[in-house]
C-alpha cells in the first residue's frame, strides 16, 4: 500500500524533503514507515527528539497500523504560540 509521508520544520530541513510516498506491506505500522524513512534519509538519525506522529491529521502512536491511512506526518515537538 502507498503511504504519503510529510516532514515539517527541522525534520524537513534535516532531510531536504517535505513529503513523499512510500510503498509498504499491508500490515505495516508507523514504526515500520519511520524505519523505512530512516534508510532513505540517514540524517533522521541525527535529530535530537522523538517526533510526534499524525495519521490523516489525528495524533497517533508508533504502533498504529497504517491500513486505511493516506498521510502520515512526523512532527517535531510543536513550538507555536
Amino acid at each position, binding site marked *: 500500500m502507498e503511504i504519503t509521508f510529510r516532514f515539517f520544520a527541522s525534520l524537513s*530541513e534535516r532531510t531536504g524533503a517535505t513529503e513523499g510516498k512510500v510503498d509498504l506491506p499491508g500490515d505495516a505500522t508507523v514504526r515500520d514507515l519511520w524505519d523505512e524513512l530512516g534508510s532513505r534519509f540517514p540524517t533522521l538519525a541525527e535529530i535530537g*527528539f522523538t517526533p*510526534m506522529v499524525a495519521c490523516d*491529521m489525528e495524533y497517533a*502512536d508508533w504502533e498504529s497500523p497504517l491500513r486505511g491511512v493516506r498521510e502520515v506526518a512526523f512532527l517535531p515537538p510543536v513550538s*507555536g*504560540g
Partner: protein
Amino acid sequence: MFRLQRQPIRLDELVQAVREDGHGAVAIFLGTVRNHNIGRKVLNLEYEAYPAMAVREMERIGRLVLEQYDVDRLAMVHRIGRLEIGETSVAVVAASAHRAAAMEACRCAIDRLKETVPIWKKEIFEGGEAWIEGAGGPMRPL
C-alpha cells in the same frame, strides 16, 4: 473562529467578531514576538504550520474548551510566515457572561495550543538561526 493567517492580526476586529451582546467578559491572550530568548538577541521569527491539521486541532481544542468552561465563544488565530519583533503571533479570545469562565477558558486554550497544535517557530537571531523545539505535550508518543 479558528484560523491561520499570513496577515497581521487585527485585535479590535477579532474582539468584535467574537463578542455578543450577552457577554460581559472578554479574556484575551496575545503571544508577541520578543527581542530575546535564552540569552540570544532575536531578529525575527518564522512560523511554519501543518495547515489543515493545525486548524483541525484548534477546532478540537475549541470544542473541548466550550464544553469544559461556561463560555459561549472562542477564537484562536495564529500567524504563519515571517514576523517582526513586537508583532502578535497568536491571539486567543474567549467571551462569556462572567469573567472567571472567560479567563480560565482563555488560559486553557493557549496552554493546549502550545502543546498540540502543529506549528513551529524558527528563530533568526544574531549569529544564526534555529528551529525551536517545544517541550512536547501530553500527546507526545514515546
